[in-house]
């Protein structure tokens, strides 16, 4: 599903260059649930942004579902994001004047799905995250956990190949975090490939594979038996 070879990325800082990613080799198969761990400055967010075609590496090769991701125009990048990827952010990033349902429907709008079908599909995914009753509510009327679940429904709505989550539990308390992780595990059980960036070890333990990043390099890549999130709620 994901094939990355010798990925480099550096940012200009003043006159100098800050080498963030120093040659990363990484691959992920379909159906994996992977967490990417590292302290701040380890390059994990940059890595995720490149995976999410929100940013581009300087060197190296990136194959997403056998499609090379290199020198894409804005238009093609937008298309790939829409087709291949679903995003979950730490700060949810819902559009505050749209209802939960309309937020979930937004990726489908950009796929050109008509309104009726869009709302039907969105309601289906809201039901899946247990928020069908909240469809007509604005984000400001939802709790943090509910917002993140709407965001997850939105990420699922376009039926992407890969879900990318950047600190999905970073803004939530422990109990709510585990509820969200439970939902993520359920989605993974249905076969979706999911990548989570986190710095919380207990969250990482709920995934099937932990990739440790330090100073722009993968220092450890281990497969583990995931802890069931439900057990901790």
């Amino acid at each position, binding site marked *: 599903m994901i094939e990355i070879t010798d990925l480099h990325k550096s940012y200009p800082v003043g006159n100098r260059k800050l080498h963030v990613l120093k040659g990363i080799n990484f691959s992920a198969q379909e159906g994996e649930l992977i967490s990417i761990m590292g302290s701040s400055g380890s390059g994990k967010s940059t890595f995720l*942004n490149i995976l*999410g075609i*929100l*940013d581009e590496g300087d060197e190296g090769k990136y194959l997403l579902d056998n499609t090379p991701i290199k020198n894409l125009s*804005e*238009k093609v990048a*937008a*298309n790939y*994001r*829409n*087709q291949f990827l679903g*995003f979950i*952010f*730490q*700060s949810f*990033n*819902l*559009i505050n*004047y*749209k209802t939960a349902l*309309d937020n979930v429907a*937004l*990726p489908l*709008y*950009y*796929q*050109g799905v*008509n*309104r009726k079908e869009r709302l039907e599909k969105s309601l289906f995914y809201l039901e899946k995250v247990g928020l069908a009753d909240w469809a007509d509510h604005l984000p400001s009327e939802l709790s943090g956990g509910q917002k993140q679940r709407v965001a997850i429904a*939105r990420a699922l709505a*376009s039926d992407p190949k890969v879900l990318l989550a950047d600190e999905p539990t970073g803004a939530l308390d422990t109990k709510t975090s585990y509820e969200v992780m439970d939902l993520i595990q359920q989605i993974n059980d249905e076969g979706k490939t999911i990548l989570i960036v986190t710095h919380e070890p207990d969250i990482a333990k709920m995934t099937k594979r932990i990739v440790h990043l330090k100073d722009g390099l993968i220092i450890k890549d281990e497969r583990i038996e995931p802890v069931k999130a439900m057990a901790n709620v």
Partner: protein
Amino acid sequence: MFNIERWQEIFEAISKNKLRTFLTGLSVSSGIFILIILLGVAEGLKKGIKKQFEQDIPTKIQIFPGTTSKGFKGLNPNRRIKFNTSDYAHVTEKYKPEIQYQATNLVKYGGVTTYEDKNGNYILYGTMPDNLFLANAYLIAGRFISEKDLKNKAKVVVLGQRPIKDLFDGDYKAAIGKIISINSIKFKVIGVYEDNGGERQDTYMYIPHSTITRIYNLTNDIGRMEFTLNPIEDYTTALNKAEDFAQRVTNQLKAKYSVHPDDLKGVRYYNALEGGKSFYMLNFGLKIFFWGIGILTLISGIVGVSNIMLIIVKERTKEIGIRKALGAQPKAIVNMILHESIFITIISGLIGLFAGIIILDIINNNLEIEFLLNPTVPFNVAVITLIILIIAGAIAGYIPARHASKIKPIVALRDE
């Protein structure tokens, strides 16, 4: 292209962001409103000031027949010169491209006029349709002499204020259609004019030129010729042109009637433009002044609309980032912002436009200020103003929208 899905999305954004929509709309419509009011007041001031200063049309050229003062080609002095219809036809044909208004006027004093038991003595003017403009008079009832009246030698008359006061007790509306008797010939009153030129100008009775020549049996005397030339903005050019025109016509007539070229009395002309410099300068000054006001207000309107558009796009940077992360293409982002801004600008612009026009109309109907006459904005000017502001709003929205559409989603989404 019209796309119902896109418009649904835009209407949602507009209707869910009521405050933002309202503020944008308010700034745009108040901008247009102020612009329209200013343009209207400027127009009214212009008309009012003009009216205060104008009495006779300042561009009129008159060619008079007279009595020769010098002998020439064996002819004695003191010979009376008279113009005939073919002279007039020749001049008007030859100078057709230059002439704006044209008429011949044959004046007869002592028009003894009676209506029922009232009577008076006024000046009888045999004239042509264009003379309404040449005399700078305007109708307050009925109509002026027409080409058809000329052709039919109709016995119709357009009265000034004096005969109306004497014969009809000032009731000018009642005069229309009445039969009055001038020197024992019956005429039908077809119109009443007003002239700011003075008391003398109020005592004229205009009848068709062909009718007066018939009554007085004057087929070979058409009286004087009067013209105005096509307007020219620049005073010096206009004056030179008028002078040249008057001299050419005069010389041609002098040659025809064997008048000595230096004879100042045989055929003479009067060029009103010579004394019209101050009027021209005033007109020019007013024009510059109000163009200045108009352009400055338009600029302030454009700045206002652009400013709002910039703020809106800035405020929506994060939303744009989210939309891009979800797969919105740059074009879709630009389209969304442009559609919204154009839609709001058009609707609120129209509201401001009509509010301005209504207010001007109220001012127009309720205020009597001498220097403010008829403060209206020509509709096409108003529409052009609106279109300029809409285009300005679109451009002002487009630049930041394009910029925003190029921002990388990670930058837009970065938490503060």
